[in-house]
C-alpha cells in the first residue's frame, strides 16, 4: 500500500471511530429519555389535583416547526464544509443555532406561563413531576447542542473552521438530528397523547 492510501485509510478509520462513538452515546441517551417517557406515560392521568395538561398546555407549533426545520439547515452546513464552502457552512450552522434558540425561548416562555400564571411547578402534581423533567431534559440537550453549534459558528467567523473539520461538524449534525428526533417523541407524548 502506498503511504497515501494508508493515510486515507487511517482518516476513514478515524471518521468511523467518531461515528460509532457518537452512536453509542446516542443509544445511552435513548434509554435515558426512554425512562422519562415511560414515567410520563405511566403517570399520565394519575394527578390527584390540577392543573391538568388539557387545561394548561398549548401546542407549541412555532417552536416545533423551528426545531424540526433546523435539521435541514444543519445538514446543509455539514455538507457544505467538506466541499470547502466554509462561508456557507458557517451561515447554515448559524441559521440552525438561531432556530434552536427560538425553540428554547419558546420553551422558556411556556415554563414562565405555567409556573407564574397557571401555578404548575414540579411539586404541584404528577403532571408537573413528569412534565418538567421530560421537557427539561430535552431542553438541556438543546442547550448542549446550541453550545456546540455556537462554537462551530464562532470558529467559522474566525476562519478557524476548515474543510478538514468536516467529520467533526458531521457529528455535531448527527447529535442535532437526534435532539430533533427526541422532540418528535416528546411532542407526541406530551402534547398529543398526554393532552
Amino acid at each position, binding site marked *: 500500500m502506498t503511504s497515501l492510501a494508508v493515510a486515507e485509510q487511517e482518516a476513514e*478509520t478515524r471518521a*468511523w*471511530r*467518531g461515528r*460509532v*462513538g457518537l452512536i*453509542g*452515546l446516542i*443509544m*445511552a*441517551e435513548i*434509554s*435515558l429519555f*426512554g*425512562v*422519562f417517557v415511560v*414515567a410520563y406515560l*405511566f*403517570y399520565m392521568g*394519575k*394527578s*390527584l389535583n390540577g392543573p391538568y395538561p388539557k387545561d394548561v398546555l398549548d401546542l407549541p407549533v412555532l417552536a416545533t416547526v423551528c426545531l424540526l426545520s433546523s435539521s435541514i439547515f444543519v445538514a446543509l452546513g455539514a455538507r457544505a464544509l467538506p466541499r470547502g464552502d466554509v462561508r456557507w457552512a458557517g451561515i447554515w450552522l448559524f441559521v440552525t443555532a438561531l432556530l434552536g434558540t427560538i425553540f428554547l425561548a419558546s420553551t422558556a416562555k411556556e415554563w414562565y406561563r405555567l409556573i407564574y400564571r397557571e401555578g404548575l*411547578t*414540579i*411539586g404541584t*402534581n*404528577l403532571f*408537573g*413531576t*413528569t412534565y418538567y*423533567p421530560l421537557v427539561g431534559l430535552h431542553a438541556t440537550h438543546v442547550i448542549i447542542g446550541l453550545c456546540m453549534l455556537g462554537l462551530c459558528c464562532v470558529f467559522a467567523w474566525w476562519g478557524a473552521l476548515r474543510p478538514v473539520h468536516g467529520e467533526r461538524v458531521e457529528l455535531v449534525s448527527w447529535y442535532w438530528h437526534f435532539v430533533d428526533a427526541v422532540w418528535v417523541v416528546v411532542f407526541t407524548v406530551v402534547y398529543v397523547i398526554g393532552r
Partner: protein
Amino acid sequence: MSVLAPTTTSPEAAGNRRALVEQLHDWVVTVDHKRLGIMYVVTGLVFFVIAGAEATAMRVQLAWPGLHVVAPETFNRLFTMHGTTMIFLVGIPIVFGFGNYLVPLMIGARDLAFPRLNAFGFWVLLFGGLLLHFSVVGGDGLYGAGSAPAVGWFAYAPLTGRAFTPGNATDYWNLAILVTGVGTIATAVNLVATTLTMRGPGMTLGRMPIFVWVMLTVSGMTLVILSPLSAAQIMLALDRYLGAHFFDTQAGGSAVMWQHFFWFFGHPEVYILMLPGFGFVSEIIPVFSRKVIFGYATIVAATVSIGLVSLSVWAHHMFAVGMGAPLNSFFALSTMLISVPTGIKIFNWLATMYGGRLQFKTPLLFCCAFLFQFLCAGLTGVMLAVAPFDWQLTDSYFVVAHFHFVLVGSLLFTIFAAMYYWFPKVTGRMLSERLGRWHFWLLVIGFNLTFITMHVPGILGMPRRIYTYQADRGWEIWNLVTTLGVPLQLIAVLIFVVNVVLSLRRGTLAGDDPWDAWTLEWATTSPPPSYNFDAIPVTTSRRPLWDLKHPDDLDGPHE
C-alpha cells in the same frame, strides 16, 4: 521490572530510579489503556478489601444469636455499603479494567478509540467511589441523622424518601452511583468504538477472541441499561430536593416504578459482571487444555443471546410485589430461557477440556472450581425463577447464598483465574504457583463452607438484612459454620496479596508468552510497550499467535 516501571525512560533519568512524585504524575496524566486498565483493577481490589471487611463485620455479628458486635443502624449501613461497593466499585472496575487492558492488545490495536475519554471514565469512577465513602464522615446532613447510606444497595422507595431517610446519606449513595455510571458509560462507548473500528489487519469479527466478543456485548448492554438507572436516580434526586412525586405514594407516585427502573438496570448488570467472567474462562480453559475452544460460534451466539434476553428478565426480582399472574409467568419463563444459553456454555467448556492435555496450573484450577460453583449458582437461579418457590424464599438467606454463588463462587473465581493468567503479561513476572495453590484451596474450602451452608438458614426462614435473631429458630449452627468459612477466605485473599507483592519483586521472569498461548496479547513483550506492537501482526485465524508460531500448520483450513 515492576508495574510501576515507567514505559518510557528519558535519557537523563536512565539508570537511576525516578522520583516517586514524577512516577505518580505519570500515572495521573496517563491516557494509556494499559495503565488505566491496571488502575481500574487496583481500584477494584482496594474497594474489594473495604467491602470484604464490611462483610466480615456482618458475619461476626450474625455468628451467634443475640450478639451486639455492631449496632442495628450500623448493620444497615454495612450491608448497604457492602453491596453498593461490591457491585459498582469492585465488579465494574475490575471487569472493565481487564477489558481496557486486553481488548486493544487482543485485536491488534495501539490504544482505545478515545484515550482521553478513557482516562475521564476512570477518574470519574474513582471520584464516585470516594464520594460514596466520604458519606461515612460527611453524610450527617442538616438533621445529623445517618452517616453512611443505610437503604440497601437497591435503595427501594419509599424508604429513600426525604421523610424516611433525612440527612444526606441517601444523596451520597444517589449521586456517587450516578457519577460512577457516567464513567462506566464513557468506557462502554470507548470499547464499542474500539472493537468495531480499530481491529488490526485480518482480525474479522469472526476471528475475535471470545473475551473481545464478550466485552463488545457487555459494553452494548451497558449503553442500554445503565442510563435508565441514571434516569431513576435523577428522579430520586428531584423527589428529594425539588419536591417531585415520582416515588411518593401519597401524591399518587409509585414505589414499584423505582423497582422496575432499578431492576431493569440491576439484572442485566449481573450479566455485565458475569459475562466477562465467561470470557476469562473461554480464554483460559483452551490454553490449559491445549485445545481450541469447542464451538466458538455457539459461545459467541450464546453470549449475544444472554445479552439480549437479559433485558427482559428484570421483574423476577419482584415476584413478591404482586404483579399478577401474566407478568409473573412472563418473567419466570424468560428467566428460565436465559439459563439455556448459559447451560450451553458450560457444555462448551467441558467439551473443550474433554480429551485435552490438561495442565492444572492455578488459572485452570480456578476455572474448574468456577464450573462446579457456577453450576450450583445456575441451579438455584432456576429454582428462584419459579415464582411460587420465590414467594416462599424471597428476601431470605437462600437468595443471598444464590447470588453470592454467582458473584463470588463464579465471578470472583474467574477474576482470580484471570489475575494468575494475565499477571505475567502485565508485570513481566509470574505469580508463585505454590502460593497460588494455597490461595486456591483455602478459597474453595472457605467459600463453600460459607455459602453452601448459607442456603440452609434461608430455607429455614431466616430473612436477609436482620442484624440478629433469636436462639430458638434452629439457625444458630448454620450461621456459625457460615461465619467460620470467613477466616479461611480472608487468609486466602491475604495469600494472594502476599503473592502479588513477592512476585512483583522476585517472581520468575515470564518472557513474552509463558503459557504458550494463542491470542495477540502474548505476541508482544511483557509488559507491552506503550505502543503495544512494533508491527501489528496479521491475523489469519482465530489463533493468530499459533499461526505465527506454526507457519507449517495454520489454523485457518481447520475452521
